[in-house]
């Protein structure tokens, strides 16, 4: 069946900001979908609030709306664009929920918009747990008895307590219609159950929780299923979880293909999967079905299905080379699978099932270090923020590569450090699922645990346990051999050990190991992911390294540029860097280079096999990158290696790569060091006569106090060389400083602590600029809404800067050029300034692509990352202006009447983390970055743009109701005006006694709540927290009282903010944020908010520039 001709325009919904459980995999799928639909000649209309995505690049859709993904905003887009169809199965749960809401409120029917991919009925059948169970029970599959776990749907706590009487403990709770398992978990006793039941009921938009018999410890599998409208169905991939049931699949180590099923069991699972997709009625496209198998009997239970493309679909696509989202988009518009060619073989159709001749391992990336009070036990509620995937010919090889891809020095196995505990103790530690579990398993094996011991303690399948034992045996054999025996060395490499691990085992450095290895000829070869286990030749060079015999890298004529990606997503380094790498690949391919991508993140666009000319799915470590470089070096000319677009990951390899003879293009490794090293950077600033906040370097508490007193409090303290402000704090006195130093165990004379003067009450400014050695192009100047001291990644900001005059911007331009020239930048530079009074301080400079590059690029209609890549390979800014890649005159700060105000807002993961006692982790912003993603609000006025950014990030600001205000003394003066304005806008104001007193003096009518530590009043006055929990408050404004010596913010503030998170109401923690919010509320009250596409904005801007 060919493409449908009865529809011509399609609305695609993206997934919004990156949050835990919904990351850049939906940019990957959405980008593929948009590309396919445009190629097929459809008019594509896109809504996505996330500017850091490739899919929101203006060339991927005909009309790109960076607007909040709420039913109201999507309706406005529909009313304006009148699409024929809506495709919501590629934008995660966010898109699916938006589409369901638009169906429920009649908008789709009113405007005649058809849901393609999965219709409303199918979505409900798949997502409504009770209906899904009925479907499973009613399936007719010869030879199989599909069943679901026994369960009861509950809407109240009482119903839940009744249900547990039948089902017993432990018991599983799953709230309906949530993503990434929000609010779900396993309760082992009544106390746990009561607490989790309340959270779960609150998390579900329909106050519904499924209470289910526990199948913890069972084997867990997933199938990725694809169907077309002629009812052809294929299984794209099977995935087996190493962690047994009980851990969210997003937090599990997973393997493709399934490793421990016989064909009979696999085919039975396949039959059930196919029967489910048919019965649920997903017309076209992909879905994901999860299964559990009882290890002793083989009893199979269907856990759930996602009637849409999922995180696992992205993994399956990368694992097999079968592009699920792309094919899903094609079948959604009418093609059948046999009509779609397999891109990789070119000769064969997509109506087949990929077969693998390698093993793929995915490992989750956690950031518990960012939330030290959070409980790191893994449950059915997803907590990881990213993942790395690795490919090897065997599970041990792929696992070793995956663990080192995480860039966490503690992740790869440690075979040498002293064992501090007994085998029994390690087994006990391994029995609790947590982020370090596999390392504990290895410790237990080192301490003598057998396969049976490990299986009994952890439930991990004995086959995987034995693979781990084999890894240990290979390491031990190499360690014990007299010299670095080539046979044992090869064996160890085949078991996935890195040069660094071998160095530790042999008591030498990884360089020495590498030298010996190369001298002995123990080198990896590169094989190809081809969907068919070599049955047919592959046209796409999608490679992975393995210690095997035959290499498959082809010769090439064109000069190659290697682009090093950014590795697994983590807080502080996410999709924004992938965006820059992808842009470099696109523009350098156009410029005639052969682009070679190296990355290990399966969620990204960069690891799509057709983003670059060649893809190496490899860890971003020195060893692995050098091997890729050598492989490419042996097969054709190399123009250079790009390290400045993928964030810190490639940047920190730059010097070592150069030392190994790898040509780095763009800013040199020496220049990178210059910017990172305080003393040298200070010299650059001094030479340019630019002020920086006073600072000092301390190696002890005494030294730190001395420096702090010299500079004057408050001071900002942090370890040197950090990403995302890790370990940073602002301290206000000697006591707090001593506390910080004492807690910061990572301080050594080699790794001193930086003590900076903290600029109170300053405006922080972020700049992204291009420099070609001669000319500076100021890409954009962003003014932070929160004051200096909040990490730039967590701060909202505005472009153009809302309060800065031309004179300040001119000074910024001059200063930026002086710094870029002084460092020796070739490409991008990001500088953070603070404007205090009339002094422009330089806070820091990063000679690389920053997190804000995509935001600036979209706000100014200029693709900075592409320009940077061209500059790195020798083009001048003047030439790029001539080509139209950069503005011919002026730059990103040129004042234009037609340009939008763009506001970026960070999205925080507070609701994901709880302390072991079950309370929320604190939601305070500070110098350490904690946000997972961002949204953009665009409008001609700041207030409206800000309001849109709030709506996009957490659902929006209230326009009526009660605002609770509690501010630190130092903020009271600044808070009065915006609070008064709120009162004038009709809000009721509530406060604690101290703040209330101040506000009343200004004629504001205030309701008083008691502080939490005071408890309820004798007259029945509630505490603030009680008021919030009772739904009396619609927005909280609370600034922190500074830190106590233990580094934990004062208890009252914490409980207020926790209650706000619990009730899902806005909680603003800075004065500047309050002012912006008031403007946003005012804008929202003052009339109709409109939507406008990037293309419309750009057309006006271009016309004005051409005048």
């Amino acid at each position, binding site marked *: 069946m060919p493409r449908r001709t009865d529809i011509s325009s399609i609305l695609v919904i993206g997934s919004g900001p990156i949050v835990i459980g919904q990351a850049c995999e939906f940019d990957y799928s959405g980008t593929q979908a948009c590309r396919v639909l445009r190629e097929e000649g459809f008019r594509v209309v896109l809504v996505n609030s996330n500017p850091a995505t490739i899919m929101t690049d203006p060339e991927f859709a005909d009309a790109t709306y960076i607007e909040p993904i709420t039913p109201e905003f999507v309706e406005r887009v529909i009313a304006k664009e009148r699409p024929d169809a809506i495709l919501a199965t590629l934008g995660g749960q966010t898109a699916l929920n938006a589409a369901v809401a638009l169906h429920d409120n009649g908008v789709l029917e009113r405007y005649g918009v058809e849901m393609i991919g999965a219709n409303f009925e199918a979505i409900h059948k798949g997502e409504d747990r009770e209906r899904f169970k009925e479907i499973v029970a009613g399936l007719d599959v010869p030879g199989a008895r599909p069943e679901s776990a026994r369960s009861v749907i509950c809407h109240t706590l009482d119903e839940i307590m009744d249900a547990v009487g039948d089902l017993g403990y432990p018991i599983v709770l799953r709230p309906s219609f949530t993503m990434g398992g929000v609010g779900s978990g396993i309760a082992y006793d009544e106390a746990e159950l009561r607490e989790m039941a309340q959270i779960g009921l609150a998390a579900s938009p329909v106050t519904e929780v499924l209470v289910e018999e526990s199948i913890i410890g069972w084997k867990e599998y997933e199938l990725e299923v694809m169907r077309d409208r002629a009812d052809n169905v294929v299984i794209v991939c099977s995935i087996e979880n190493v962690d047994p049931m009980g851990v969210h699949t997003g937090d599990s180590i997973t393997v493709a293909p399934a490793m*421990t099923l016989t064909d*009979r069991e696999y085919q039975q699972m*396949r039959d059930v999967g196919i029967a489910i997709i048919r019965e649920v009625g997903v017309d076209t496209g992909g879905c994901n079905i999860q299964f559990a198998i009882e290890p002793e009997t*083989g009893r199979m239970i269907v856990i759930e299905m996602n009637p849409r493309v999922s995180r696992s679909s992205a993994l399956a696509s990368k694992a097999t080379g079968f592009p699920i989202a792309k094919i899903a988009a094609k079948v959604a518009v009418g093609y059948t699978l046999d009509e779609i060619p397999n891109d990789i073989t070119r000769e064969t159709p997509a109506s*087949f099932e990929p077969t693998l001749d390698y093993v793929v391992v995915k490992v989750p990336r956690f950031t518990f270090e960012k939330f030290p009070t959070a409980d790191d036990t893994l449950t059915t509620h997803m907590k990881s923020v990213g993942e790395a995937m690795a490919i090897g010919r065997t599970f041990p090889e792929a696992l070793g590569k995956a663990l080192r891809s995480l860039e966490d020095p503690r992740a790869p196995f440690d075979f040498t450090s002293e064992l501090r505990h007994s085998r029994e103790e390690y087994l006990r530690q391994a029995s609790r699922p947590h982020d370090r579990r596999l390392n504990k398993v290895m410790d237990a094996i080192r301490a003598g645990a057998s396969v049976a011991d490990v299986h009994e303690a952890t439930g991990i399948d004995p086959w995987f346990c034995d693979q781990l034992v084999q890894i240990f045996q290979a390491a031990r054999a190499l360690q014990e051999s007299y010299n670095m025996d080539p046979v044992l060395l090869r064996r160890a490499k085949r078991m996935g050990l890195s040069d660094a691990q071998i160095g530790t085992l042999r008591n030498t450095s990884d360089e020495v190991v590498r030298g010996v290895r190369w001298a002995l000829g123990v080198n990896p070869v590169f094989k190809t992911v081809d969907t*068919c286990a070599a*049955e047919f030749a592959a046209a796409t060079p999608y490679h992975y390294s393995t210690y095997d015999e035959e290499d498959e890298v082809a010769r090439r004529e064109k000069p190659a540029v290697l682009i090093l990606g950014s590795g697994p997503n983590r807080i502080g380094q996410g999709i924004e860097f992938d965006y820059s790498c992808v842009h470099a690949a696109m523009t350098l391919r156009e410029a005639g280079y052969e682009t070679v991508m190296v990355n290990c993140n399966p969620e990204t666009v960069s690891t799509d096999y057709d983003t670059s000319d060649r893809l190496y799915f490899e860890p971003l470590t020195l060893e692995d990158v050098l091997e890729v470089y050598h492989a490419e070096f042996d097969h054709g000319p190399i123009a250079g290696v790009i390290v400045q677009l993928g964030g810190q990951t490639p940047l920190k390899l730059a010097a070592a790569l150069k030392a190994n003879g790898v040509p780095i293009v763009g800013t040199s490794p020496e220049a990178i060091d210059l910017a990172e090293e305080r003393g040298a950077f200070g010299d650059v600033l001094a030479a340019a006569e630019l002020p920086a906040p006073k600072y000092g370097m301390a190696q002890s508490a005494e030294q730190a106090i001395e420096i702090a007193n010299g500079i004057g409090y408050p001071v900002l303290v942090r370890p040197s060389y950090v990403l995302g402000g890790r370990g940073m704090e602002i301290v206000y006195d000697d006591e707090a400083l001593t506390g910080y130093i004492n807690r910061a165990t990572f301080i050594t004379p080699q790794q001193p602590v930086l003590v900076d003067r903290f600029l109170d009450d300053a405006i922080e400014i972020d700049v992204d600029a291009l420099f070609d050695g001669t000319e500076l192009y100021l890409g954009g100047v962003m003014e932070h809404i929160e004051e200096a001291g909040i990490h730039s990644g967590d701060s909202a900001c505005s472009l153009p800067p809302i309060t800065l005059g031309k004179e300040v911007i001119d000074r910024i331009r001059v200063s930026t050029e002086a710094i870029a020239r002084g460092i020796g930048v070739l490409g991008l530079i990001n500088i953070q300034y603070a404007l205090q009074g009339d002094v422009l301080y330089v806070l820091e400079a990063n000679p690389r692509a920053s997190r804000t590059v995509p935001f600036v690029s979209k706000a100014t209609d200029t693709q900075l990352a592409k320009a940077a890549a061209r500059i790195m390979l020798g083009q001048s800014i003047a030439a790029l202006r001539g080509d139209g890649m950069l503005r011919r005159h002026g730059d990103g700060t040129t004042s234009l009447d037609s340009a939008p105000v763009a506001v970026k807002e960070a999205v925080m993961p507070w609701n994901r983390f709880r302390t072991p006692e079950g309370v929320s982790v604190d939601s305070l912003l500070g110098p350490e970055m904690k946000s997972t993603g961002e949204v953009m609000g665009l409008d001609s006025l700041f207030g409206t743009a800000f309001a849109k950014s709030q709506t996009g990030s957490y659902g929006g600001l209230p326009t009526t109701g009660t605002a609770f205000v509690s501010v630190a003394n130092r903020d009271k003066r600044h808070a009065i005006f915006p609070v008064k304005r709120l009162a004038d806008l009709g809000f009721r104001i509530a406060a604690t006694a101290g703040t209330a007193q101040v506000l009343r003096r200004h004629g504001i009518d205030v309701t008083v709540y008691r502080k939490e530590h005071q408890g309820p009043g004798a007259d029945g006055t509630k505490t603030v927290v009680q008021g919030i929990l009772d739904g009396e408050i619609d927005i909280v404004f609370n600034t922190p009282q500074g830190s106590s010596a233990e580094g934990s913010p004062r208890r009252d503030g914490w409980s207020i903010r926790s209650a706000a998170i619990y009730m899902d109401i806005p909680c603003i923690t800075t004065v500047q944020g309050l002012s912006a919010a008031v403007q946003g509320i005012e804008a929202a009250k003052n009339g109709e908010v409109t939507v406008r596409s990037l293309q419309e904005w750009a057309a006006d801007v271009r016309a004005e520039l051409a005048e």
Partner: protein
Amino acid sequence: MNSPQPVPALLVLEDGRTFRGESFGAPGEAFGEAVFATGMTGYEETLTDPSYRRQVVIATAPQIGNTGWNDEDDESRRIWVAGFVVREASRISSNWRAKRDLGDELKAQGVVGVTGVDTRALTRHLRERGAMRVGLSTVETDPDKLRERVLQQPAMAGANLVDEVTVAEPVVVPAQGEKRFTVAAIDLGIKEMTPELLSRRGIEVHVLPAGSTIDDITALGPDGVFFSNGPGDPATADDAVALLTDVLDADLPYFGICFGNQIFGRTLGFGTFKLKYGHRGINQPVMDLATRRVEITAHNHGFAVDAPLGETTTTRWGDVRVSHVCLNDDVVEGLELTRDGAVAGFSVQYHPEAAAGPHDSAYLFDRFCAVMTAHQDGHSAGKDA
């Protein structure tokens, strides 16, 4: 749990390409045609499939043996492959049905197994150069000497192996549930799942030796006749062609699988030819040209029927057309004979009995029942008239 000292093993192809690995089956030497199989599951079924007689199977899936050996999934009474080559053999079994390790079973049945081979390189070699003879040895260390012995082996083209695999005496598989039909199934190397799936549909299956005559068949009063899969070159199977000619002359409904498809093709006047490296996997897309539906199918064939796509050929038994085609390479995957608008016989080149493989094509067994029913009705209608 330290592994015993590995025993080196040598693999030499007839063109001289050599791979080294380690022994994981029986010690000794083995020869056959080197073929690769791309299924990620189902090694137990593959090893016991008689169609692999005199073939050395290379598994493209790298880690093999993980689920051990369970005795339940065997497709015949023994392992038939001449040798088994893998990238990484599992040293333990993990499955609730497993009885012993794969390596132990290979040893017990005297089958040479080699692990540690770059099976992807070997597969690519066979894909580019075509299937060829191979030798495995755990005793020879000189590749040239082993190659001399490889070159002395007979080639697969021209090999008649049916007599080596067929049953000695008839075996009856009773119908499950109510008996609806009697079928004579000629064993050219039949897999156990085939009579199983037939019997589940109420068919009493008489599995007959390949040397049976038309009289042996008609003596059973069958409602239909089935020719199974099997090893070797269909061009040599003149006896089977002669038998099927008699069957069609006797107006008995026919169903054939794999070898049975090739015999059907030859009987209807088409030729057969050897594919460069064959189809061996469980992920192959086949289109039923009548319905345009795609099924994912299990394949194991090195030869194919040379029949025209999209044309009808007239024979003395009726009109023949190609009913199924492999979407990867347009190889004929099924034939259908119709007489007076009714299906008189049909066959497929692939394996609807699966084992190993997907169950998408199980409908063909129902189709056979439908053909037999229609045939009975037609006959009784004829008698009434």
